[in-house]
């Protein structure tokens, strides 16, 4: 069966707009977590987040969209990343709007980023605001599809923090089943009053930049961003070259608690083991792990415990959330881009803000700038609320 390959990628995050900008900051080991300027929340005064360094006005100006009515920041980020991905893949307008081109996207906040408009419409304060049709998760997907005149299959996943990883998996499966010729997969989320307050109410936000896998980690730093990958079958490619392949994936449920994971790491272990099985790889084949690594007590312990159970000796691993913050639904796709960059350039970058190792476990994240490596297989993990555990393996072609 033909491999599922990645022919284009686009990303926008706190460490840059575009793949080259993001790579540069990774190589410079420079975190994008700082006091935000554009998100309307009182927590912006003291809580550091991974904000994209652009206002909505900046993004509008860069995009030059025909119809700007009711467009939210979540959509603006999506358009930025989508545009880059399809350009790199060399897709023509005709190909994008072909009926066998599918779009699988993901978001958690969607248009709810417009908190005041949402409140006003929900209370029917007056006439509908311009955002009345923009709030739902699926609205941004429809907007992307309409903007690019896409006629093919669309889907939107919302499983919280594992959403875009699940989107990527579905894209791969659609291609393998011959139900699409190419699939654009990914996700988007913007910083919002809604999510800041939600995570604050759960008391899992860190008041310092997140310290993934550190003994004294205090929680997560929120982030925002968007990323899209163009997936195609290798056999369909003729001349164009692909970047990497999606060789394995699995989705399992931890089934323990709505917002924390089991001590036995059932879902984590199940997802990683499942991904290895689909890829036909042994644990020792994994050269690098791009962890979920949110910096919460629960996630980092459970994830590392799970990694040790499944992989034994864990290869160099890190958390890119120490650079970008937790980009929620976009995380799986943003981290897919970083995983593929790792493969393409043979590099593993340092996990930032690491202090000291977690007691009771046996590994620490990579804190060195590693280059000149042969990175054949990268495992990327994304775990969401509701016990949703997803693991995807990207491999060198």
């Amino acid at each position, binding site marked *: 069966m033909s491999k599922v390959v990645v022919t284009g990628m686009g990303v926008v995050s706190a460490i840059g707009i575009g793949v080259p900008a993001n790579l540069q900051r990774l190589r410079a080991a420079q975190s994008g977590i700082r006091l935000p300027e554009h998100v309307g929340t009182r927590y912006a005064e003291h809580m550091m987040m991974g904000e994209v360094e652009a206002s909505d006005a900046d993004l509008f100006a860069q995009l030059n969209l025909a119809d700007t009515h009711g467009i939210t920041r979540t959509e603006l980020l999506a358009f930025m990343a989508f545009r880059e991905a399809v350009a790199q893949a060399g897709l023509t307008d005709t190909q994008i709007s072909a009926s066998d081109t599918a779009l699988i996207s993901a978001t958690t906040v969607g248009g709810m980023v417009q908190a005041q408009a949402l409140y006003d419409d929900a209370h029917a304060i007056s006439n509908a605001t311009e955002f009345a049709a923009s709030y739902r998760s699926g609205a941004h997907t429809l907007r992307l599809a309409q903007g690019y005149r896409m006629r093919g299959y669309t889907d939107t996943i919302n499983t919280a923090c594992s959403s875009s990883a699940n989107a990527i998996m579905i894209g791969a499966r659609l291609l393998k089943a011959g139900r699409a010729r190419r699939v654009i997969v990914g996700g988007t989320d913007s910083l919002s009053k809604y999510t800041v307050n939600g995570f604050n109410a759960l*008391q899992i936000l860190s008041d310092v930049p997140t310290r993934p896998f550190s003994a004294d980690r205090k929680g997560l730093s929120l982030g925002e961003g968007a990323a899209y990958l163009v997936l195609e079958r290798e056999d369909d490619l003729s001349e164009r070259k692909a970047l990497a392949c999606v060789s394995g994936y699995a989705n399992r449920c931890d089934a323990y608690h*709505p917002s*924390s994971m089991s001590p036995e790491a059932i879902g984590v272990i199940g997802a990683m083991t499942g991904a290895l099985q689909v890829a036909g790889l042994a644990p020792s084949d994994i050269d690098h792990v791009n962890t979920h690594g949110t910096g919460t007590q629960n996630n980092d312990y459970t994830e590392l415990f799970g990694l040790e159970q499944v992989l034994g000796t864990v290869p160099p691993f890190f958390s890119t959330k120490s650079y970008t913050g937790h980009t929620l639904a976009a995380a799986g796709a943003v981290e897919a881009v970083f995983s593929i960059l790792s493969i393409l350039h043979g590099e593993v970058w340092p996990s930032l803000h690491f202090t000291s190792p977690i007691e009771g476990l046996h590994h620490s994240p990579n804190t060195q700038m590693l280059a000149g490596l042969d990175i054949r297989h990268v495992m990327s993990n994304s775990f969401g609320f509701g016990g949703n555990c997803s693991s995807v393996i990207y491999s060198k072609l």
Partner: protein
Amino acid sequence: MEENALKAELKQHIIKYLNLLEMKPEDIADDEPLFGPNIGLDSIDALELTVLLEREYGIKITDPAEGRKVLVDVNTMAAYILAQQASA
């Protein structure tokens, strides 16, 4: 407020905040562990209880360790509230 009246009020609040359907204040003994098998609260409920303390009694618990000592049963919660009110 007088201690017994406070405990009765606290039970009403707990039932309301946590939406403990079919439970009445008299079903909650003063020393019944809130996180034990009978009432069966979990970590999210613990967060709800800290909000209850702030909204109803103006008391903020910021240290999780302190929270674990206070949120044991109605007795410990009432004692904490009274102590905070006395020192205010």
